[in-house]
């Protein structure tokens, strides 16, 4: 490669050829991806800036510790590592699709694009589950001197500091509303229906609450939700559009569009975009789950 490069070196800017040795579309894809990198960078840096402006920030291992089908088991990092590997593998299948395109091997392009699409859809499914789990999974929070149930949303964050002072908790329990008490009992005791619990008296319900085993927290920084859903959502949207692009590429390959053109450059451009989605995930993974 070095030899060929020197052979062409002096004539790069004489016109008639790309000074970057790339065809126009691919070069513009690179510049689009660079600008997209700045967009993601700005979001992530803004998140970092807000995080550094807080005395307390939720520990990601506490927030993201669930796994589908594992109930309330504490499995920090498990599910997100599955998502990470799905994206890495789908990136590899995309490399193989691009390589098959270089050789004009239509059947291989179709095969590898198909697996890339499956990987993208699997990732989106994982993300949907994770969001659903975070939004609907309610946690006990102490606010304004009483207990309440709260999910992780853009307006509330249940991952504040753990409250270990039993006196504070008992006082809070005594001023908690009837309905919330029933909800709290229902959240860890499924032998009673909500209706049964609502029919019980407050004293009975308080007796059923085991304060020592509950992890009651204060409210955490509200910005957490907005940043998490905003950035992973923006990334998820990129994955979604990547999947759509790949599906279009698959159909075009199937219809011999690239075969008739004589080259599979479009697959290369779609490939660049797909790898970029993987690249961004590497940083999202770092900023939200690891540090």
């Amino acid at each position: 490669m070095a030899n060929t490069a020197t052979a062409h070196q002096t004539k790069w800017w004489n016109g008639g050829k790309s000074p970057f040795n790339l065809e126009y579309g691919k070069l513009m894809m690179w510049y689009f991806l660079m600008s997209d990198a700045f967009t993601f960078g700005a979001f992530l840096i803004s998140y970092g800036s807000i995080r550094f402006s807080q005395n307390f920030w939720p520990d990601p291992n506490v927030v993201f510790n669930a796994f589908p089908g594992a109930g309330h088991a504490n499995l920090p990092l498990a599910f997100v590592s599955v998502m990470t590997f799905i994206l890495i593998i789908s990136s590899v299948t995309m490399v193989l699709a691009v390589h098959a395109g270089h050789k004009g091997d239509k059947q291989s392009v179709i095969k590898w694009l198909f697996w890339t699409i499956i990987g993208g859809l699997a990732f989106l499914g994982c993300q949907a589950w994770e969001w659903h789990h975070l939004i609907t999974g309610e946690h006990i929070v102490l606010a304004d001197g009483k207990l309440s149930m709260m999910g992780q949303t853009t307006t509330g964050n249940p991952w504040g500091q753990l409250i270990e002072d039993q006196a504070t908790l008992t006082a809070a329990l005594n001023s908690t509303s009837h309905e919330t008490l029933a909800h709290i009992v229902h959240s860890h005791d499924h032998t009673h229906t909500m209706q049964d619990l609502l029919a019980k008296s407050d004293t009975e319900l308080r007796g059923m609450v085991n304060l020592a085993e509950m992890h009651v927290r204060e409210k955490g920084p509200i910005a957490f939700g907005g940043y998490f859903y905003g950035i992973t959502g923006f990334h998820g949207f990129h994955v979604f559009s990547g999947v759509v692009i790949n599906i279009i590429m698959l159909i075009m390959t199937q219809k011999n569009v690239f075969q008739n053109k004589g080259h599979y450059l479009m697959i290369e451009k779609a490939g660049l975009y797909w790898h970029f989605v993987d690249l961004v995930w590497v940083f999202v993974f770092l900023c939200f789950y690891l540090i």
Partner: protein
Amino acid sequence: MQHPAFEEVSFHHHTDDATFKKRVIRTTILLSVITVIELAIGIIIYNIHKGESPNHTLVLMFKGMVCILTLAKAYYIVSVFMHLGDEIRNMIMTIVVPLMLFIWFIAAFIWDGNSYKNLRNKYDKHFEETTMPREHHKAADHPMTPAATPGGKE
């Protein structure tokens, strides 16, 4: 393999199947191994946090390691999977040089966030008292004054 659409492109890279395969497998394994190491460090950080008195310097060190490993992963994805490493130098520089802005970008905004925190802690005592993390074991010693021990302020 000179196609009409490629006229602006002076030369192509032709990697034979064997070299290509070896390269992809090597990079895949590298990315996976780095990810596994990152996850292991994540678990280590989790366990340090769980302990009685977390060593914050150690946590910071591990977090720094994860950042470096992430940059290594990004390098391999961009250079091998996206073939940027195979492009000519002029092209690589038009992508890499603008990205250098990130060095200032990250440093400046993290610095800004940190300075805002320090100013708020200084002038907004309510903010400091309600958000400063309490040392868990200390809170257990003085159960009636949970918020009265804001850790380590000058």
